[in-house]
């Protein structure tokens, strides 16, 4: 019982007791007591008045009949009508529907219509605001399939100079052409969507900073279907410190060193020439401290064989602490090396056969690969050739990663003029395997549109966001989001926003215009509503009978009548002894 009810009840009881005591004392004190029924009637009326007041203040709940609540969402037909027994409400996104009552959101509708036993959602689905677990069994009538760009995966943050990929799906336009335009407006990648409507485009972030690419979707006849801004935020990266341990000098290490030096990577090569002579940029004694100073160790099988057990154990411990280790076979592995590498968790074969690396481009130069990577569930395939054969794989060990590389003479690509592919391969290897250093930068969860609530995740400290019109908004992290550290933000303007987190770092977030990516939004709504509706089948339809607070007005009338009777009875001579 709530406090209010308790105090009201207490006051009423006290008042009733006082009234009864007063009536009885007057009866007893009166010189000529009235008829016996009169005080009894007064007491009864007092009790009835108190009861009526109580019921007026707290009307007793009444059981309500069950019905179907029809919720009109965006894209619901304007001619929607409620069947008998159905109540029609319209969410703010819904078009004007004649019979529908407007409700600000779904929760309000459910509160206002507790009698609903079932929900029926009409239209393209619920807005993000209403995506809470549904308390009633729900039916969702999906709308007719729609066409356009229905899915879009935006790139994560890219490193300057590295390629990023965007992918998506175009529905309803066979043979549509998608193109990616760079910030200067020139098309950098062009593709025709496949039969399944999917496409992938690639671009390169030339330098650090926010860049606005543009995705253009054109129909087969050239008519523009959609133009979407693709925000790409490239961040300056700390380049890894790499140490290469080779069993002997060779062309592969020479070209690797040259490529890395050109790219600005601190790379040190160490190769014995035999008879105790060591060709070394920087001598690296294998200790936990020295390995802790580098980010990636590249070692070939000959050098691995030459290491003693304690050195190997030091390297493995360093990997556990975060070091990256790339195993680079120079040829077929010896049985001992194979066993040793397999004990690291990588399922490797001897790799006695050299097979060509297949490429999609027929004119591309051919290099050989050793067939030593066996696909296992423990290892992640990092690179594949055009035929789907793995070229590199890695697996996590502790906080570090161990990778294996199956192309012993990749330098041949550089010699044959395909330095681009060589660079892409080794960039990918270094990026994946090197010690973790980057930090999760805050990003908008999904696609942000102006006028729609967005969740910004990965925040730390007291973050502030600057809107294009110059207003700064502090962000409050929702404790319920846990380690994701998400905060809600309601952008009012499209364009770049500057997010400053508490530690002085900042990043750029892009908010699309309100009308952008209509089909993607519709597709999202559709999928989310279907999922909610499917989950709501678990809710039992015959859950405890729903009740609603009754109306206080009948009780008020009863109170008035009772009080009137009391007043009349108190005033009247009826039932009193005639004055003598």
């Amino acid at each position, binding site marked *: 019982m709530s406090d209010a009810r308790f105090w009201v009840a207490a006051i009423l009881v006290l008042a009733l007791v006082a009234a009864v005591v007063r009536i009885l004392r007057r009866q007893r004190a009166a010189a000529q007591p009235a008829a016996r029924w009169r005080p009894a009637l007064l007491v009864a009326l007092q009790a009835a008045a108190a009861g009526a007041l109580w019921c007026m203040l707290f009307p007793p709940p009444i059981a309500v009949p069950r019905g179907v609540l029809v919720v009109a969402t965006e894209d619901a037909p304007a001619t929607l009508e409620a069947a008998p027994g159905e109540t029609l409400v319209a969410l703010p996104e819904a078009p004007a529907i004649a019979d529908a009552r407007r409700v600000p959101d779904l929760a309000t509708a459910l509160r206002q219509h507790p009698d609903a036993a079932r929900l029926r959602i009409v239209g393209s689905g619920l807005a993000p605001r209403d995506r809470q677990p549904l308390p009633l069994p729900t039916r969702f009538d999906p709308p007719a399939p729609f066409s356009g760009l229905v899915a879009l995966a935006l790139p994560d*943050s*890219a490193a*300057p*100079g*590295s390629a990023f990929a965007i992918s998506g799906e175009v529905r309803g336009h066979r043979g549509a052409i998608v193109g990616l335009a*760079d*910030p*200067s*407006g*020139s098309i950098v990648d062009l593709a025709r969507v496949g039969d399944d409507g999917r496409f992938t485009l690639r671009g390169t*972030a*030339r*330098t650090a*900073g*926010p*860049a606005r690419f543009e995705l253009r979707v054109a129909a087969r006849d050239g008519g523009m279907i959609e133009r979407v801004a693709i925000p790409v935020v490239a961040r300056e*990266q*700390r380049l*890894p410190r790499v140490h290469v341990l080779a069993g002997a000098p060779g062309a592969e290490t020479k070209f690797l*060193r*040259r490529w890395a*030096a*050109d*790219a*600005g*990577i601190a790379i040190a*090569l160490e190769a014995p020439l035999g*008879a*105790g*002579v*060591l*060709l070394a*940029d920087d001598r690296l004694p294998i200790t936990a401290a020295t390995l802790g100073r580098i980010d990636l160790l590249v070692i070939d099988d000959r050098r691995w064989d030459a290491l003693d057990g304690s050195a190997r154990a030091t390297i493995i411990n360093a990997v*556990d602490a975060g070091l990256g280790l790339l195993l680079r076979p120079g040829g077929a592995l010896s049985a001992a090396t194979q066993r040793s590498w397999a004990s690291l968790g990588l399922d490797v074969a001897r790799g006695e056969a050299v097979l060509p690396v297949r490429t999609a481009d027929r004119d591309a130069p051919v290099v050989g690969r050793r067939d030593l990577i066996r696909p296992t569930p423990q290892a992640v395939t990092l690179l594949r050739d055009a035929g789907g054969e793995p070229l590199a794989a890695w697996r*996590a060990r*502790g*906080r570090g990663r161990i990778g294996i590389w199956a192309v012993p003479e990749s330098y041949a690509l550089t010699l044959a003029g395909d330095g681009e592919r060589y*660079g892409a391969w*080794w*960039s990918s290897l*270094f*990026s*994946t395997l*090197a010690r*973790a*250093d*980057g*930090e*999760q930068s805050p990003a908008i969860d999904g696609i942000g549109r102006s006028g729609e609530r967005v969740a910004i995740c990965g925040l730390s400290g007291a973050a502030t966001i*600057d*809107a294009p*019109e*110059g207003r*700064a908004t502090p962000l409050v992290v929702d404790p319920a989001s846990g*380690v994701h550290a998400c905060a809600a933000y309601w952008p009012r303007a499209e*364009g*770049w*926003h*500057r997010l400053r987190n508490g530690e002085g770092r900042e990043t*750029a977030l892009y908010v699309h215009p309100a009308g952008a990516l209509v089909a993607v939004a519709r597709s999202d709504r559709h999928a989310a509503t279907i999922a909610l509706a499917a989950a709501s089948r678990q809710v039992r339809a015959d859950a405890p009978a729903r009740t609603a607070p009754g109306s206080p007005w009948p009780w008020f009338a009863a109170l008035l009548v009772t009080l009137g009777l009391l007043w009349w009875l108190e005033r009247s001579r009826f039932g009193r002894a005639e004055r003598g």
Partner: protein
Amino acid sequence: MTAIAPLARLQRAAARRAAIDMLAIGAPGALALAAIGWRFGNATLAVLIFVACALLVAAFAYLRARRFDCGWLVGQLDARVPAFEDSSALLFGAPAASPLAALQRQRIEVRIDAAEAVDFRPAWSHRAIVAAWVIGAAAIVALLLWPDATETPTPRDGATATAAPAMPPTLAGVRLRITPPAYTGLPARTQSTLDARVPEGSRIDWSVAIRPPGDAAAIAPVGGNRIALVRQGDAWTGGMPIDRAMLYRIEAPGLPRQRLHRIETVADAPPVVRVVAPERQLAMLNPGQRRWTPVFEATDDHGIADATLRVTVTKGDGENISFEQRSAAIAGSGPARRRRFAPTLDIAREGMAPGSDLIVQIIVADNRAAGAQRVEGPSAILRWPPDLALADGLDGMAAPVMPAYFRSQRQIIIDAEALIARRARIPAQEFADRSNGLGNDQASLRLRYGQFVGEEAEGGGSGIALPTNDAPALPTNNTPAPPPEAHSADDGHDHGSEGGGASGGFGSAVDVLNEFGHAHDSGDAATLFDPGTRSTLAQALDAMWSSERALRQGDPQAALPHAYRALAFLKDAQQATRIFVPRTGAEPPPIDLSRRLTGDREGIVAREAPVPARPTPDATPAEAWRALQPLPGPARTPPLQLGALDRWVRQNAGRIADPLALSAAIDTLRAEPACTACRERLRALLWRVITPPRAGISRRAGGNARGRRYLEALR
């Protein structure tokens, strides 16, 4: 009534005071309204408004003054002069009817002096006056400072024109008259924008209207000489010939800094000639053909000025080929921009004979004023096959003859083996004939190689020398490429001292070289006839001879071993040549003989292999790109260095696709730092000139503490 005169004076003073008070309150309002009229109308309107307002205020003042009448005075006198004993009305009324009233009047008339000392004028309404003047003054100041909203919009962006003489001059309108060079035949045109794309060598005349006209105006090209404009009536005019693309702006004293405008030039393209007929470059003479009409078509963007026909006839065959060339002007048909040339050549008159070629070429020149561009078109060749002469008059009976090339040694072996395989299926005579044919081929080959080792030519070996497959494809020191590759003194490589009269004795190397070979190196280094190769080739010739003998005897089986041996010797000779190719590359250090084989490794260390320095990509455009990023809020990037960027663009102009556009964008942004569209444009242009780093390596994120704990627990 004279007694009341001082009282009337008091009344007038009060009325005057009330009127002045009213005027003092109303005057600022009239002034403010007049100021509104002046600000949004003109001075006349202001005067009219002021007069009207003044009349209105005066009327109010008059009405207020009228309230101070006789009745008011009586009331005041009664109230404020006790001496009058509430009877002052008697002073102003008609002569008293009753004696009591007359008596009272006489009594108070003598006390009139008491009233004169009293000030009946109403007090100044200080507050109202001060408030009115303050509000009025504020309103007038505000009106004077109010921005002028009645300026007339101007035809050009950013330029303003106004009648007010105090305004700075503005660009009211421009006209460019573009006169292409006369030879192009293009009409002159006029445009009203300052950017233009004109044929090279055009003249542009500017006509610029500046309001007010000012004292001077000029066209200021970036990095060029200013051209002062001349006043002509309302406009400033001037012009210049345009030889290359440029950026310029219009300057005039007092004129706000204008944006840069761009003149682009379209270069005159050289003419293009193509052969329309024959369809293929090489045509064969048909039997009985007497004339030949090749058709050429020459196109040019502005017109073909003249054309020359060049006819070359070759005579003879083998090495004994002579040329005869003549040139003649030729007239074409059709429009000047697309002209057709169809010379008809009489085959007999051109002096063609069997085996000769007739090569026809058109040389056209366009009509460019500054040096015509001359282009030699492709040639059409008419060939009279050598053997066709025999068939003269026997149309259709002469089969086309394929040129006779030597078979290679390997081909001879293959053919011989094939012949042996088919021995059982063909008659003996045919087998012998074929074997003999192979023997002939073998003989030709032997003679061909014999030339290299200085054997006596046999059977006219000095004649044509045709390539063989066994001969090295590329000339080397030992075996130069055989003829018919024609050599001359100016064919692009150095020749040894050929000829020159320095003939050695018979059989000496130099002698043989001069007689048969074609040495590309100096005589001292010539290795063509070193004894090893020479003996190898001699053995090969021996083997060939044996093979030939067996073949001619109809016994290819016996010839095969010799043929194989010959092939092996030939390959040896070819392999041997490779040894003598001068090699470049690593030069190992000299061996330290003092500690050779001693096992002494003291002081032997690996040299640190140097990594060649590569110029780092220029950061200037990338920094400018970042400084221009359209992020709201306080920026943490370094501010935009437009000067440094401009310098960079000028230094790297050869490397950038469109430096003029970049320069113009920089200049525009410098003049208008607040222009968002200009920033966007410069940013877009910068993207194209940024050099991306060579490797894009991104570091993976480390994850949070919980993630790290998970990874560590995951063993």
